[in-house]
């Protein structure tokens, strides 16, 4: 039984999987040959990982068949998957920190031999030499870099004798040099007869590494092509598909005012990896600025940097406070500050003449200010760099942030609606006791206005459905009449009706002159809702495009093209 070169080792027939009302995979067909590298390509949420999780035993398909070496199998657990020599390397590593590499690798392996760590270390070294890894089997995981941890995960699968390896976005966490090393190792494994699936959305990697490409879109298989016979543009088209018209009411931008200017923003994450690289853009009041990009391109860090949560190493965040032609008050400025600003010629009076306090007594100045006769010439400009969220709020900057992680960063799951409203207002007032009346009213108003389905405002928010949780969060953030509203994936996991409700709320804010920043993943929505779109690509701004004239393919291409190679 000599194995032919294009033996099919894994075949999926009509695989479907739904989570609640969300269809993750529908009737997916797919095959994998012996000794090939196959890329599974698709946008975020296209069901790539779900599909592979079914092959590796994390989920069980609702319908369809999985065939390994031509025989139908049932894979109910990762253990079963190993039995069929299938191993998956997940995006989030599953390793025990205080164990050595070899201890992690041997964990859970059943064997007849007597357990001997020295033997295990030796075998790990053998495997790593065979395929060209570099690893010290006795090194502890907590001393390892991300790339080393990934190596441990790969060897863990090989140690169990896997012939089919599935890698979920293996390059997302690696530096370009490490990616080259990984690719070399993967090619060695292919030449050794292993079959490899890599889940990715990076086109240049697909073209550089794989033999065939299988494309998923919205949970359905679009097709499988030979890498040699395709091109970036063809793959992009397969990935993003035809434009879908959405019925989102987009008004024209009227008298947009500069509100938030991001200049040369650069930031590093805790591991010292550059997550934001020289970001420049301006958000205008009265428009919706979309941010598009593959997940993990720096969208989250960008919003957190603006909100004061992500430390930045370089650049400015300039907020233009809308004060033009408004009188100054003692509520925002002290007398001293007003005097200083008057010296710099920042005010005019009702007749439009410049204000000067030279030779005036304090009481006259106070009177003039209280009469509203001291008026700003221009918007006030403040730099939000290195400010904490509290400092930003104390400056009087009305910045609202609807984070991606609703129940982690946005709301407290175990607290009820009123208490969650209070998170924004508990500092108000000087009394020892907090004011519960206003948050209660606000909660009632949010429930009424946004049609939140909840037993009462006393219900812990974690008991609400995803859509209702999001409504509560958005409702609270909008209630403070923000000048800048940042929303990260506000419709993720929401049904159509709730999604439209959120779109309408954002549009309403736009009409009120708020600068709305909308991070989205569905390109159709971004194109239909936003006025301009900042396309991000691995921490950089790829381009800023006009959402009314750009095509979906163009945005898709900007999201995935390899900027570093192009330079």
């Amino acid at each position, binding site marked *: 039984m000599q194995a032919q070169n294009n033996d099919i080792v894994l075949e999926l027939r009509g695989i479907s999987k739904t989570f609640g009302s969300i269809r993750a995979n529908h009737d997916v067909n797919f095959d994998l040959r012996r000794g090939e590298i196959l890329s599974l390509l698709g946008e975020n949420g296209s069901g790539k990982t779900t599909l592979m999780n079914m092959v590796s035993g994390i989920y069980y398909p609702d319908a369809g068949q999985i065939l390994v070496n031509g025989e139908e199998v049932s894979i109910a*657990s*990762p*253990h079963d998957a*190993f039995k069929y020599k299938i191993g998956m390397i997940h995006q989030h590593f*599953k*390793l*025990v*920190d*205080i*164990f050595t590499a070899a*201890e992690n690798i*041997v*964990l*859970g*392996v059943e064997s007849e031999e007597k*357990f001997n760590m020295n033997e295990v270390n030796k075998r790990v070294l053998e495997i790593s030499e065979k395929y060209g890894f570099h690893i010290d089997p006795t090194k*502890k995981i*907590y001393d390892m870099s991300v790339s080393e941890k990934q190596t441990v995960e790969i060897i*863990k699968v090989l140690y169990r004798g896997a012939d089919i390896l599935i890698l979920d976005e293996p390059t997302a966490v690696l530096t370009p040099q490490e990616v080259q090393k990984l690719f070399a190792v993967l090619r060695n494994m292919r030449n050794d007869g292993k079959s490899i699936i890599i889940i990715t959305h990076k086109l240049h990697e697909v073209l550089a590494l794989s033999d065939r490409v299988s494309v998923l879109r919205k949970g359905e298989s679009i097709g499988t092509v030979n890498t040699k016979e395709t091109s970036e543009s063809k793959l992009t088209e397969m990935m993003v598909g035809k434009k879908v018209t959405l019925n989102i009411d987009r008004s024209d931008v009227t008298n947009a005012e500069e509100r938030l200017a991001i200049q040369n923003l650069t930031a590093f994450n805790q591991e010292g990896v550059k997550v934001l690289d020289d970001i420049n853009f301006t958000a205008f009041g009265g428009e919706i600025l979309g941010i598009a990009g593959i997940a993990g391109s720096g969208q989250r860090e960008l919003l957190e940097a603006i909100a004061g949560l992500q430390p930045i190493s370089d650049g400015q965040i300039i907020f233009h406070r809308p004060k033009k032609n408004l009188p100054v008050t003692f509520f925002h400025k002290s007398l001293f500050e007003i005097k200083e600003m008057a010296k710099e010629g920042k005010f005019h009076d009702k007749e439009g003449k410049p204000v000067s306090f030279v030779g005036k007594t304090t009481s006259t100045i106070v009177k003039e200010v209280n009469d509203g006769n001291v008026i700003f010439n221009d918007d006030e400009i403040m730099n939000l760099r290195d400010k904490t969220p509290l400092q930003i709020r104390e400056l009087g900057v009305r910045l609202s942030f609807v984070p991606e992680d609703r129940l982690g960063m946005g709301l407290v799951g175990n607290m009820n609606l009123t208490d969650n409203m209070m998170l924004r207002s508990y500092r108000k007032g000087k009394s020892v006791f907090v004011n519960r009346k206003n948050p209660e009213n606000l909660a009632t108003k949010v429930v009424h206005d946004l049609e939140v389905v909840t037993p009462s405002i006393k219900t812990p928010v974690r008991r609400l459905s995803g859509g209702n949780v999001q409504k509560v969060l958005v409702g609270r953030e909008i209630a403070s009449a923000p000048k800048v509203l940042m929303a990260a994936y506000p419709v993720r996991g929401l049904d159509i009706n709730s999604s439209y409700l959120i779109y309408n709320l954002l549009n309403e804010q736009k009409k009120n002159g708020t600068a709305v920043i909308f991070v989205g993943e569905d390109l159709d929505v971004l194109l239909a809702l936003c006025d301009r779109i900042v396309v991000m690509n691995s921490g950089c701004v790829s381009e800023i495009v006009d959402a009314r004239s750009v095509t979906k393919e163009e945005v898709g291409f900007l999201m995935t093209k390899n900027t570093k190679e192009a330079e």
Partner: protein
Amino acid sequence: MNAWLNFFIDALAFGAVFIYGSTGEIITEKAGHLNLGIPGIMCMGGAGGCLFLQLFAKTLPSVLLVPFAIVASFLMAALMGLIYSFMTVTLRANQNVTGLAMTTFGSGLMMTIMSRLQATVYLNKPKKMFRFPFAARTDALQRIGVMFFLAIAVAVVASYLLYKTKLGLHLRAIGENPATADAVGINVTRYKYVATCIGSGIAGLGGFYYIIDYMGSQEAYKSIEAFGWLAIALVIFALWRPHMTILGSFVFGVLFCCSSSISVIASKISWFNVTMSTTPILKMLPYVVTIVVLVISSIRNKRENQPPAALGVSYFREDR
């Protein structure tokens, strides 16, 4: 000189109570379960063993009586561990609350059982059998009996199993990161149950040892609960390594015996002036030492010396 030797042998013999308690607790904690029920479980271990002796001391020959009583004590404590595991592993109840409830329940039930047993039957005759192999001696060595050696053996074997075998590797993996262990096909629930029950059983032997062997008195059972808490403190002292409990329990034993035999020592040291008020201060020493060890190990911040990462956290597979 003889007084010093007596003192150290006494400290060693007393320390064995903690070896059982903390080895049991370490095994449980390595599975990720903080079992604060150990004091109650030790009580029940004592009650189980004594109950067995009460029932069978007159009928069974001594060759069988000793091992069977030990097994009975182990099983009674393991039963408590089973209740605890059911609550915390299967029902995922809060471990601290469950543990404290087990302690209250265990010590109360023990009081009820012990007060109904007859010291003449369960204690007076059998206690000599447990003093084997030094039963015939009249010096301090006769304080060391069969269960003392068992304690040392248990601690050494537990260390070997935890650090040198695949079984131990799996168990430690569960305590550190149950999701990872689950993903590689280790049966997390089974390991947690078995580890908690065996750990509880071992801890229970500590209570039995204290009543029947170390003290050999009718009133002994009343202080087991207090030693249970000390055993939990010793787990930190031993940095979650069973063989370290041998050293730790000796230190604790010395410190604790200091307070009881203080007048003997004081008579030997002229500059050491003892009053009644010194004793409570000395009784504090084991706890002070535990705090010092905790501070030192936290400052050194070596990852291997920290508690299991998933300690006290219930594992639920679908919680992703």
